[in-house]
């Protein structure tokens, strides 16, 4: 047991306690949390900073506004509903189209039909705070449903794959692609069974994946090889995520992006407490990279410079794979 802990430490693996005590508490002041915990606010801040985000169709802030749902999506064929203060992908409903016979019935990403009533009940639950981090009242966001880039089509089971970048003091430190599986119910959340694939920071190519803390080479549902996929617009992704630091001022930040086939990388959300499984996906400990960033840290550097520096500093060592 002691030996295992020593081996993890020598490889620079970051544990939950250390993440909380050393990085989140030190670098993420509480007063900045609303910037990432409330997705409406995150969206607005990102737009102000000139970053691309999925279009906002409407926000439902209280029970009375639930009725406006039908008019908000009147002219839309597909959309996504998510709680503004949700976490871990809970409470997200993806609607990909409408029933051919009934316009008030929607086709969910899973292929099932859901009625307007069912969606309205879901909206009530969101507004009541069922999915919010604090259990307080919440708002429901209705926004553009991303049509993801075909590069990940073979390694996703329904849902939307996204790219998670850990940004430490403004420098991208580690990245992974999160691929939905049948087990994760189409959600790109590792905790729920999605596959995470590490990313070579220099080339933007995927490495092997991890699923339920185990290393995998193939997607469990589609059987396609995970490694070796080139992520499009990799430099834009690194730059946007580096810019996330300016937007949120959080020193330890997780930036989640999706790649739309028409609009390129879009900021989905940001996270003040990003998980640690990214280390398994990259088969590398985070602490060594965070220490390297501490050494190269330059308070005057622009997001472009920081992204470029990180790109050069963290190539994946092929020997480790």
């Amino acid at each position, binding site marked *: 047991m002691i030996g295992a*802990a020593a081996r*993890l430490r020598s*490889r620079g693996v970051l544990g939950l*306690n250390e993440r909380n005590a050393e990085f989140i508490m030190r670098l993420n002041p509480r007063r900045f949390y609303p910037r990432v915990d409330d997705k409406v606010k995150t969206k607005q801040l990102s737009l102000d900073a000139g970053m691309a985000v999925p279009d906002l169709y409407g926000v439902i802030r209280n029970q009375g506004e639930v009725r406006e749902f039908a008019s908000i999506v009147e002219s839309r064929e597909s959309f996504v509903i998510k709680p503004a203060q949700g976490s871990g992908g*809970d409470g997200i409903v993806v609607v990909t189209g409408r029933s051919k016979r009934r316009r008030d019935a929607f086709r969910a990403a899973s292929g099932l039909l859901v009625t307007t009533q069912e969606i309205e009940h879901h909206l009530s639950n969101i507004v009541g705070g*069922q999915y919010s981090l604090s259990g307080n009242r919440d708002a429901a966001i209705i926004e553009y449903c991303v049509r993801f880039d075909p590069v990940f089509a073979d390694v996703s089971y329904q849902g939307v794959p996204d790219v998670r970048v850990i940004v430490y003091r403004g420098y991208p430190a580690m990245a992974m692609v999160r691929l939905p599986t049948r087990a994760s119910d189409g959600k790109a959340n590792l905790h729920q069974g999605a596959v995470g694939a590490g990313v070579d920071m220099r080339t933007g190519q995927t490495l092997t994946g991890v699923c339920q*803390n185990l290393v995998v080479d193939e997607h469990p549902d589609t059987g396609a090889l995970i490694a070796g996929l080139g992520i499009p617009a990799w430099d834009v992704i690194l730059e946007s995520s580096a810019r996330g630091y300016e937007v949120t001022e959080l020193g330890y930040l997780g930036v989640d992006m999706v790649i739309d086939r028409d609009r390129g990388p879009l900021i989905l959300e940001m996270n003040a407490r990003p998980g640690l499984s990214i280390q398994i996906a990259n088969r590398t400990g985070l602490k060594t990279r965070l220490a390297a960033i501490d050494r190269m840290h330059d308070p005057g550097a622009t997001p472009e410079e920081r992204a470029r520096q990180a790109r050069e500093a963290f190539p994946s060592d092929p020997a480790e794979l």
Partner: protein
Amino acid sequence: MGDRYVYILALVLTVTGLAVFTYQWRVIGFPLTVDEEDPVWTIEARIGFEGGPGSIKVNLNVPTLTPGFRMLNENHVSRGFGFSLNYGTGGREAQWAIRRGEGPQTIYYRISVYEDPTARQADTTPPFPPVPVITEPYRTAVDVVVADVRQHSADTPSFTSELLRRLNDRSPDPNVELLLSEAATDAGFVEVATTILAAARIPARMVRGFPLVGRQRSTQPVAWLEVHDGDTWRYFDPATGVETLPERFLIWWRGNDPLVNVEGGNRVEVDFAVQENYVGAVAIAQTQRAQVGSPFPDMSLYGLPIRTQAVYGVLLMVPIGALIMVLMRNIVGIDAFGTFMPVLIALAFRETQLLYGVVLFTLLVTLGLTIRFLLEKLRLLLVPRLTAVLIVVVLLMMVISLVSDRMNVESGISVALFPMVILAMTIERMSVVWEERGPADALRAAAGSLVVAVFAYLAMGQAWLEHLIFTFPELLLVVLALILVIGRYTGYRLLELGRFKALSGDS
């Protein structure tokens, strides 16, 4: 930087806690372990009354001479009252007085005694009592009875026994019947006996006290008869006439006076609580402390009313349970619902016992979860749905209690002790996790909560630990220091070693 302050603070707390602990243990002499040899009895009188608008004076007879016992200490709790101890006709009297007092008042008087067979009463021989002034027709009746009993007895003890035998006769003679016509209570009965004995020029008096057995709540004093034979006082059972004293009988007061006399108050209620402590040395240490003149104010919990002591006995163990929970979550890394939910469940286990506690908890959560899923179909708003779950939990508790009572499973009744609000929140949270993350996650977190609760219960149930914390509450400072240090623990959690296994393999 932050680390250093935490460690310094933890060090200061530990040193303070241990220093006070060492002082209390070595100098004052509080015992580290429970002493089962030397029981100390604590008897507490609680006087409750409705205060009038004006001044209030309360007189309470308190123990003076208690053969077979020695007093360790006595104290009283009363808000705003002046207190004095006087000698009255029946022995010592405690007096509380206040100029103005309105509304319900409560006064506590408490005495701690321990058994000492060598403690004899050093009472003076009383003078022969004057012949009581008795009016007719009682006078004739008394004279006849005294003459009759004297005929059938040889000395004072046999006179007393014979008298009591006649007074207790199922078919009494008309004279006895007349004398007892006014005596409605045991005390009244003994009073009649003392009057007749006085008429026969035998010094006699009523004593009242408590046979000390185990833990009693709301007990009332027992009347006994005390007769002086010229040398010593002898005790007679008024109900049988046998010369005896109940085992461990603590004499509270003597004479015919009422126990308590309240001027300026009404609806007086007195009840007694008796508690047996196997911490004799504790009480002894307390008397010592008074003599030594400890520089610290008396902060011992043994000074609180007995009822409050029982509450703190439990409360002080909560930090221990919380410590276990912190260890399980931050060092081991077990998932659980709610921050303090496992500790509260563990507290409930104290009453239900472990096995039944776990069974009942599982049963309650399973049933609650089933009904919660049925409620889901109704599409209720969040807060009404939570409330509905709460009501269902209350009803389920009631049903489980009723069913187990019918089936004569006593432990089932104690289900009512589970914190129902916490249970309702747990069921709601679990159902959300169940739907969002799947049954595996929900069951894992539920099992985690139960495991933490069981460990917390086991830690909180250690009698020696409970005694230690209750006697030396300053040890909680050490617990606090430990929590602070764990708060800065940045090492891996035990379960993380498994989680990151893929990273620790040899490359």
